[in-house]
């Protein structure tokens, strides 16, 4: 493999300088330089716990499902009540309740989609992109 033909004819050969563990002071260019210790500490500090990330999505997906179901139930009950009531004042209250239920259904649906199907669709999109890239090569 190392004898393969170059696809970068313009690159000059610069042998890699041997490096030792203690030689970490040099050229850092414009990227901010932090010590190994602070970099490692920041990394470990920002790590999530094994259960946190999955749990959060699951929790929100379940919450969305509950809100959606409740909203739907409220809408159906309010609609039935408003249709069976003769009192126009009651009907107004029940229609308002129905609209609130409909709004809750939409809100719950959005949350559910965001945290359940959203993840699935994201992976589906990534897979599509990856397959397209693979075919292009």
């Amino acid at each position, binding site marked *: 493999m190392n004898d393969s033909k170059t*696809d970068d004819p313009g690159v000059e050969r*610069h042998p890699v300088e041997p490096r030792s563990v203690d030689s970490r002071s040099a050229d850092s260019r414009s990227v901010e330089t932090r010590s190994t210790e602070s970099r490692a500490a920041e990394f470990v500090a920002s790590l999530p716990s094994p259960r946190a990330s999955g749990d959060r999505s699951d929790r929100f997906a379940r919450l969305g499902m509950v809100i959606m179901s409740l909203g739907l139930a409220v809408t159906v009950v309010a609609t039935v009540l408003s249709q069976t009531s003769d009192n126009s004042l009651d009907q107004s209250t029940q229609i308002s309740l129905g609209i609130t239920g409909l709004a809750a259904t939409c809100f719950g649906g959005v949350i559910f989609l965001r945290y359940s199907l959203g993840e699935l669709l994201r992976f589906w999109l990534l897979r599509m992109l990856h397959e397209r890239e693979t075919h292009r090569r």
Partner: protein
Amino acid sequence: MIPLDSLIELRGVHAGYEGVEVLRGIDLVVPAGQVLAVLGPNGAGKTTLLSVIAGLVRPTRGDVLFGGRRVTGVDPVALARAGLCLIPEGRGVFANLTVAENLWLAAGSDRSREVVESRAFEVFPRLGERRDQLAGSLSGGEQQMVALSRALVSDPAVLLLDELSMGLAPMVVDDLYRRVVDIARMGVTVVVVEQFVRTISHIADRGIAVISGRIVLDGRIEEISPQLHSAYFSSSEEVST
């Protein structure tokens, strides 16, 4: 206090795909700031090892720890956000996006597109000249530069490189590994998967040889290189019998 002598730790890790076990009890400790070379023949489990560290493959047994914290099963996206960066085999650049657009993928709320571009082009001036060119039309070495600069601007704590040298001429590989040395000098812990020890011998602090899913050699590159041939051949005999 973070245990710097074990930033990455794998304890008895077994992993595989659809019932086929690829890693068979990997115990590995990588200190912070070390450049570790993972050597081994095709199909030895090197890429799976990187995938387990990156959280892309969940071990069937054993644990992965970062700085003493168990991270087995943590979402790989969360690990990437924390500062773990994987450059996969095949470079992972988007062929139908321009160089600039590929770099913008590393931009976010904490760094603008301009900052990302200026950092990348300072380290790899040649990419600046090809800013508006489609990444798919770049040479293999330039595509690897795009992947490396995207990693560089994300300011990682751990960088995982999978066969950076694949399909590239030796001089291009040398040039790329010089950049890896620069990145390592910034205090980044680097794990590099390579098939050829000669390619990596100048930059790695330590090497391990993975054969048939097990670590069979572990030590300084110059110490393990003489034993690599016999280790590789004994593994092929094992497979053929």
